């Protein structure tokens, strides 16, 4: 029942020492902790992957949320890519579109897999299904992508936080983006150390991001935050694969995220009392949906 790693340093050291992938260390720890077989654990993750795949497909056909605030943007982006004139690159925009697709399905009360939460569920699958077209992974490698993401999420959840209510959007989409970046690096053949660099570079650039959902709903700006989380993670993964390193070690970046989250005003932690939620338009949307203005303290 032993935990194999408590932080990123231990995770990377163990992978390097035993010449294993990060995903393998996560699988071994899950077997240790749960007493379940490798086969059972793989099958459960395989089912999660299928849910993610179906959510992306559904979002790309176009969905609309109950409130009408979000939906349809994933389709707009795909149509734009098809015209062949994209500036930031087809793969990057494909990831953005698929991240948006997932969160649009989530807002429409469709079925998704929380990674690590529902509000940040788009980043990991968005990047996975975009990178898939370039790297042509096996089904097993795609499942491993989720274990690598999970290993980093596990460290963040136990040393800091992964929910917007506890630590702001940096804890939620920030963690998801870091998780995705690390998993992209492993799938692309990078080293365990490079997965940590990718995570660090990503999270560094999402530090301080607040959770300010309009009307308290997981729609605005959550869907677009997932879009940018996906873009951020792809760029950071490429930087790490190029050999760029973070001057601040990964665990210390996570520590910084934790302390920033602790000192963040409660108004900026999912209460819908600050940030975009407290703008004139944000308040007007809330009043229209709920019939009265959300109180701002």
């Amino acid at each position: 029942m032993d935990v194999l790693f408590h932080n990123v340093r231990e995770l990377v050291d163990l992978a390097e020492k035993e010449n294993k992938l990060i995903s393998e260390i996560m699988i071994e720890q899950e077997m240790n902790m749960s007493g379940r077989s490798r086969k059972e654990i793989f099958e459960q993750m395989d089912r999660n992957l299928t849910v993610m795949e179906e959510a992306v497909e559904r979002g790309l056909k176009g969905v609309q949320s109950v409130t009408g605030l979000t939906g349809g943007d994933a389709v707009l982006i795909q149509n734009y890519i098809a015209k062949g004139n994209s500036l930031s690159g087809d793969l990057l925009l494909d990831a953005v579109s698929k991240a948006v697709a997932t969160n649009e399905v989530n807002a429409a009360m469709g079925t998704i897999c929380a990674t690590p939460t529902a509000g940040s569920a788009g980043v990991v699958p968005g990047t996975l299904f975009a990178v898939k077209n370039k790297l042509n992974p096996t089904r097993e490698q795609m499942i491993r992508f989720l274990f690598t993401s999970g290993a980093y999420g596990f460290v963040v959840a136990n040393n800091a936080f992964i929910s917007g209510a506890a630590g702001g959007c940096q804890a939620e989409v920030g963690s998801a983006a870091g998780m995705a970046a690390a998993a992209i690096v492993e799938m692309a053949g990078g080293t365990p150390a490079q997965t940590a660099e990718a995570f660090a570079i990503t999270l560094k650039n999402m530090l301080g991001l607040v959770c300010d959902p309009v009307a308290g709903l997981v729609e605005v700006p959550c869907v677009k935050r997932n879009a940018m989380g996906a873009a951020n993670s792809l760029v950071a993964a490429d930087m790490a694969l190029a050999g760029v390193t973070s001057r601040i070690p990964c665990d210390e970046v996570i520590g910084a995220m934790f302390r920033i989250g602790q000192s963040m005003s409660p108004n900026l932690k999912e209460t819908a009392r600050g940030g975009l939620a407290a703008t004139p338009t944000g308040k007007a949307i809330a009043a229209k949906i709920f019939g009265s203005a959300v109180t701002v303290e």
Partner: protein
Amino acid sequence: MKFTSVFDIIGPVMIGPSSSHTAGAARIGRVARDLFGRQPKWAKIHLFGSFAETYQGHGTDVAIVGGLLDFDTFDERIKTSFDYAKKENFEFEIIPETANKEHPNTARIVMGDENGEMSVEGISIGGGKIEISEVNGFKLRLTGGMPALLVVHDDRAGCIANVANCLAMHSVNIGHMEVSRIERGQTALMVIEVDQNIEDKIMQQISLIPNVTKVSKINN
């Protein structure tokens, strides 16, 4: 360590839009139903804090009703749980409260049928994870992540030992146990988290122990 499994991070599979306001809410409803032991005929669902303020947009109401109908977090029927409730003749009332609770995402479910009533209070702590914080007025802390046994009994010497003995006889290992009472010598509650699901046979034996008035369980 709060999170022990990779599936706490990659999961749960759920109906959107919020892991705390939708999936967590469904889990609170389902655990409440488990504790009640059968499909309640009616329920009054009190919502507090952020649950009370944003339940419509998050589907917290349909999720709790879905949970009370035994739907899991990923069950598509959650979206139309009100229709299923009608079909089952299950009557419910959603009551947004203004009182402040310690935790922003709190729900109290008072449910019953012709054979009894029960009140269960639960909190949604993030990522779909929940805790049960009160049952029939007893404060407690139950995650629902492990099988558990709740035993209501008269506060008399030997009762706890008798229940523990019964579990030992069936080789059921106790992982965590809490005891509490409202007043000395009156009604008391044991909350026992165990390593495996409890069979009905064991439940029945415990219910026959002197001074035990009620036994409920959560299986996993």
